[in-house]
């Protein structure tokens, strides 16, 4: 006895066991599922939410460690930008009085680091006083009484390199506050409290709140809202569509239960395993829903077709599961492989996502083949009286499916030609893909955060901040004029990049203090002294004259061994940020820094660039791995490399077509699109498996190609078409989501279903006609 037969026997034993168990003990099946669902649902109470995008990198990732170390060392915090724009100018007494009071109230918000707020009333300004006096004092100690005083403050901001472009636009139309916060996961709440304050004082100007932390945290929060709304909404529509097809509520109840319980089990297991629900894993329900429903639709569809033949529940169930067991096992297994391949990606939330979706699919498979039969067994026969009868009639739907078969058999040359053209056109589109992401753009263009992002970045030097750290390796290294000159030149170079609004560092403080020390009139003194002692004394003057040491030590460590250059950017797109990083690299390559100086980046936008990089390369690898594994599985399933290759065509063409259209549309390849590749692969192989496996089963029975061809466009064809419609239409509501990734996911479901469905039902039969002698060698024509 060959190994294959041995396996087949085991396989049959499992199958028989499952069928027997669920048909003989339906109540027990339901009972076990109910109890376990209760156990997993209980775990959900311990759910913790993690919206920190830094967690896209492992905790021990060097880039991340350096970022935290930098924040710690320079006392930097994540911040929100709050801006007001008045077309006729924000620098008047009325507006500044409001800003003064707004700032005062913001300092009281829990989680705001009041000492480090950058606001006119809180930042220090360096200026000349009467009688040769150097003054370092708050820029706006009291709210101005007159517009002249307000204009004076604008002048002071424009004269201070550290404040210019940050606190105000040069023309004074915009005014901004930078609010540092204790941790990123407070930013959504704090933004809400700030909004309440600005609403209170907000006559005249329009107020905006922006910043990466608030975008990312708010996205996390809104995402959960969407999850709670979108998944049930899709569920409802899927339910209605299934009712339309099968017209029996009791028979379509199990798929809904399978979907919901597999989601509960998966999320419960995730929480149980101690993982917080990250932005990524909050997508699990929306991914699991359609996958969980797919198998059931095949079962019900087949049950529906067979019931009219056998008119006996248990017999129908046995035949249905018998015929569908293998394709369902393989479609589920390939989808599992698609998601498990994400484990090769070294982004922890992606791994968790992949692992648990795979778990959920396995659960959904198991439940589909047990719960559907169990429910059917419990149904009274009279409830099934008219079930399946409708297909006897020549409905539009079944005519349509048969029409596809006819089309393929008549126009197979045109179909094959079109497919080839599609592959060529797609290849070009693939090369046009632009990799880019910006968490702010996960919101729709008219979302307040997007509007704030656009407005503030248009008027000011930017709401995105990276830090370039110069490590001189020893105490006082930064005071060395050679290094200060180097930093100054690098600043000038970086500022040529159009997204760099400004840079600020210890160089600017040295120049400003020196200029003011010499009376504040001699422009030549606005420069770096070329004597290390003078640098040391100028910095000492800053510390002596009431300058807050904490302000200074945001740009240099207190031992003067490291400097922190703030690079403020008006655009948070990874592509744009990467261009700034590339500029710095180029400069450093062309102009080696003074010896022993180490230069490294920190900052949230930088971290985003890094994980995107890892993600994109990681996704490519995952996709390749799962592609190979799925091919091996197919060749094994069909015991034929040729069949294996053919089965890979729908998914290959689907992936190419979908990703090519992203290239053509110029839509950036971002995080959501990247993770959807595994879904695309996992789902678009399914129809091919059903189509081919069942063609072969039918052919074994009929031994006749024509008969096989016609029969495949009956039941199996209808099941595939039903799936296409149910899933594609089920996710249409997501097109109207507020969050771009949800729109993307909805669009993908629609595209995956329609493209892979069409390719399966048109290209595969065309190929079968052309290759029938090779594919069905023993066929009688």
């Amino acid at each position, binding site marked *: 006895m060959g190994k294959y037969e041995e396996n087949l026997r085991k396989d049959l034993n499992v199958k028989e066991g499952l069928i027997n168990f669920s048909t003989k003990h339906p109540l027990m099946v339901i009972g076990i599922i109910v109890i376990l669902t209760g156990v997993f649902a209980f775990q959900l109470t311990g759910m913790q939410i993690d919206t920190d995008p830094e967690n896209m990198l492992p905790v021990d990732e060097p880039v991340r460690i350096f970022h935290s170390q930098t924040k710690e060392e320079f006392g930097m915090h994540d911040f929100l930008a709050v801006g007001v724009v008045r077309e006729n100018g924000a620098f008047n007494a009325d507006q500044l009085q409001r800003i003064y009071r707004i700032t005062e109230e913001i300092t009281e918000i829990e989680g705001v680091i009041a000492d480090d707020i950058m606001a006119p009333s809180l930042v220090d300004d360096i200026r000349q*006083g009467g*009688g*040769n*006096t*150097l*003054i*370092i*004092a708050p820029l706006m100690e009291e709210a101005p009484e007159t517009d002249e005083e307000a204009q004076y403050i604008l002048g002071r901001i424009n004269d201070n390199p550290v404040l210019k472009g940050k606190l105000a636009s040069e023309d004074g139309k915009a005014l901004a506050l930078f609010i540092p916060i204790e941790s990123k996961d407070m930013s959504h709440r704090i933004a809400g409290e700030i909004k309440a304050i600005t609403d209170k004082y907000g006559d005249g100007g329009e107020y905006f709140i922006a910043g990466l932390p608030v975008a990312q945290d708010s996205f996390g929060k809104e995402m959960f809202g969407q999850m709670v709304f979108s998944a049930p909404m899709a569920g409802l529509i899927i339910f209605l569509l299934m009712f339309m097809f099968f017209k029996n509520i009791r028979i379509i109840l199990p798929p809904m239960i399978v979907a919901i319980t597999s989601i509960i089990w998966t999320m419960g297991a995730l929480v149980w395993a101690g993982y917080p629900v990250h932005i990524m894993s909050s997508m699990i329900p929306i991914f699991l829903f359609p996958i969980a429903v797919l198998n059931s639709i095949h079962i019900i569809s087949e049950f529906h077709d067979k019931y009219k033949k056998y008119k006996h529940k248990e017999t129908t169930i046995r035949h249905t599961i018998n015929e569908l067991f293998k394709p369902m096992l393989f479609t589920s297994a390939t989808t599992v492989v698609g998601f498990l391949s994400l484990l090769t990606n070294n982004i922890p939330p992606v791994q968790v996502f992949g692992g648990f979706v795979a778990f959920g699919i396995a659960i959904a498979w198991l439940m589909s083949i047990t719960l559907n039969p169990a429910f059917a067994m419990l149904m009274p026969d009279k409830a099934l009286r008219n079930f399946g009868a409708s297909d006897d009639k020549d409905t539009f739907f079944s005519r349509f499916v048969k029409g596809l078969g006819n089309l393929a058999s008549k126009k197979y040359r045109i179909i094959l030609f079109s497919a080839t053209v599609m592959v060529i056109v797609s290849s070009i589109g693939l090369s046009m893909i632009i990799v880019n992401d910006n968490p702010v753009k996960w919101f729709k263009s008219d979302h307040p955060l997007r509007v704030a992002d656009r407005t503030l970045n248009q008027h000011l030097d930017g709401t995105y901040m990276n830090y370039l750290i110069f490590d001189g390796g020893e105490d*006082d290294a930064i*005071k060395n004029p050679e290094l200060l000159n180097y930093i100054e030149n690098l600043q000038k170079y970086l500022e040529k990049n159009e997204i760099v609004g400004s840079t600020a560092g210890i160089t600017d403080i040295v120049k400003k203090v020196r200029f003011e*020390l*010499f009376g504040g009139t001699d422009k030549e003194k606005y420069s770096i*002294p070329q*004597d*290390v*002692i*003078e*640098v*040391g*004394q*100028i910095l*000492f*003057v800053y*510390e*002596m*004259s*009431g*300058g*807050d*040491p*904490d302000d200074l030590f945001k740009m240099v460590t*207190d*031992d003067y061994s490291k400097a922190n250059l703030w690079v403020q950017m008006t655009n948070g797109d990874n592509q744009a940020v990467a261009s700034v990083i590339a500029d710095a690299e180029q400069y450093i390559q062309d102009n080696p820094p003074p010896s022993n100086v180490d230069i490294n980046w920190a900052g949230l936008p930088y971290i985003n660039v890094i994980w995107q990089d890892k993600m994109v390369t990681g996704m490519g690898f995952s996709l390749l791995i799962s592609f190979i594994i799925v091919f091996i599985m197919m060749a094994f399933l069909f015991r034929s490399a040729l069949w294996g290759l053919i089965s890979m065509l729908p998914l290959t063409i689907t992936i190419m077509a979908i990703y090519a259209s992203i290239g053509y549309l110029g839509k950036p390849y971002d995080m959501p699109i990247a993770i959807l590749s595994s879904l695309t692969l996992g789902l678009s192989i399914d129809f091919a498996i059903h189509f081919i496996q069942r063609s072969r089963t039918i052919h074994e029975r009929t031994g006749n190609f024509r008969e096989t061809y016609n029969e495949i466009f009956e039941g199996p064809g209808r099941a595939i078409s039903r799936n296409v419609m149910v899933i594609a239409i089920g996710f249409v509501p997501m097109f109207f989501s507020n969050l771009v990734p949800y729109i993307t996911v909805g669009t993908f479901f629609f595209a995956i279903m329609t493209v892979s469905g069409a390719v399966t039902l048109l290209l595969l039969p065309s190929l079968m006609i052309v290759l029938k002698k090779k594919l069905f060698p023993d066929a009688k024509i």
Partner: protein
Amino acid sequence: MKKFSISLMIVAIVAMFAQGVWAGDAEDLMKKSHMAYYYAGDDGLSKVTMKIINKKGKERIREFTMLRLDITEGGEQKYYTYFKKPSDVSRLTFMVWKNPDANDDRWLYVPAVDLIKRLSADDKNSSFVGSDFSYEDVSGRHWTEDTHTIVSENETVNDRAAFLISSKPKQEKDSFSEKKTWIDKETFLPLKEEYYNDKGKLFRIFTADKIEEIDGIITITQRTMENVKKKQRTTIIFDSIEYNVGMKENIFTERYLKNPPRKYIK
């Protein structure tokens, strides 16, 4: 019931009365403490080492010689500081004329550019040479700026009997909302201070670490200010102190900023 309310009233009256008497005593104690701490002798010459120790435990050292002359007892004072370390600020000098009723006058001489500059003194709470001590901590906060109450007369700090006094600023916006001072019963020197912000949170702690008798005057020769939030502290160590050396007032002029008085600064 009636009895109870009467006795309650008596308690309240006594408490009010006691508080009134104590408030006067408290202010008197604070004044005595201020005089003992900031006005010891008629003048003072000290060599000082200042250590700023950040949260990682890393030290920054400043070394300077400080001259002080009292113009009026409990009132005007003049200070002259000559820096030796860190080495890049060596020869930098700094002068303060303290005016209890108005803003101080401050001058700074920067030798690298040979320039004297006046510094604004609007903010007495700003850091003194980048340390955790503020200008006000160094030259003293006048006792009339706060209302004082004695919280306890039976405290001990480092085995020394002390009063505990609570001080609240009279001005609405100040650098703290409450200060607790432990005053040595014997010398009236402040042994410890705690500063609380408007949320009632402790944010600064002063401690007198070492007390010695010099020229017959009990002196705190080592003191520390800890910034609780920043987890940073500054210790000032007086390596040597001389009192009543007979300083002349003309030392405290711009001329001597550029040319330090050799007599006191070697």
